[in-house]
């Protein structure tokens, strides 16, 4: 077990817990970006540099900022009056625990069958580039279309406010 793995997992898990449990939403958002960073480094520990940095660029660079913007725009920053958790929080917790138990059971059950460590895959960005444009060119195009659509969609959803508020 490498120290790095442990450190990273603890950081990520603590960040996740913080993101979920903190009272102040902005703190949650920041905890979230910590989780993103932790995950990025986990990716790199799995020798997926490209994915890691892409994760950093996309999540920390864009999504975190977006979340924060959303929080500010919806006055989420003030702490809500009546409790942070929904009324039936216990049920949610139980269900989440159930899901974790099941997943854990599945993983532990198949521990032996899982493949062991293999050699570090010699993967360069050139291969990734070729793969993206070669074998996975269709998903690439589709993601491109999806992103454009999402952008336009988000704009349309948000833009209504401009006319309304003249």
């Amino acid at each position, binding site marked *: 077990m490498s120290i790095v793995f442990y450190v990273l997992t603890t950081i990520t898990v603590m960040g996740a817990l913080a993101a979920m449990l903190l009272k102040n939403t902005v703190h949650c958002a920041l905890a979230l970006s910590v989780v993103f960073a932790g995950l990025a480094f986990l990716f790199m520990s799995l020798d997926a540099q490209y*994915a890691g940095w892409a*994760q950093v660029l996309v999540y920390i660079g864009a999504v975190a900022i977006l979340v924060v913007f959303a929080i500010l725009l*919806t006055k989420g920053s003030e702490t809500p009056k009546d409790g942070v958790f*929904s009324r039936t929080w216990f049920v949610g917790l139980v269900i989440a625990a159930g899901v974790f138990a099941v997943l854990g059971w599945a993983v532990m059950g198949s521990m032996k069958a899982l493949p062991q460590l293999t050699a570090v895959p010699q993967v360069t960005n050139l291969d990734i580039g070729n793969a993206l444009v070669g074998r996975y060119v269709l998903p690439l195009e589709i993601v491109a279309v999806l992103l454009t659509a999402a952008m336009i969609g988000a704009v349309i959803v948000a833009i209504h406010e401009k006319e309304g508020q003249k």
Partner: protein
Amino acid sequence: MTSLAYYLLVAALLFSIGLAGALVRRNAILVLIGIELMLNAANLNLIAFWRYGPHPERLTGMIFAIFSIAVAAAEAAVGLGLVIQIHRHAKTTDLDAMNRMKG
């Protein structure tokens, strides 16, 4: 080296934490954050299986993760756009209040 099981466990833990958050928190944005967490846990799984999988050179896991990151970003954008719209309209992000879609 850490074996695949541990990564899977971490991913499961992250996933359930995200789920718990989504289920428990009252604020819509935090539910979205929970969902982001679940998505990332899934990405971790993908990369883990890719790394420990039989054919890492085929890059399927990694590229799948990359696409998933892209899509997640788009999803976050639209989700937050909606939440902002709801807030602007209903002046609240409290999920319990948002039950206009009741059957």
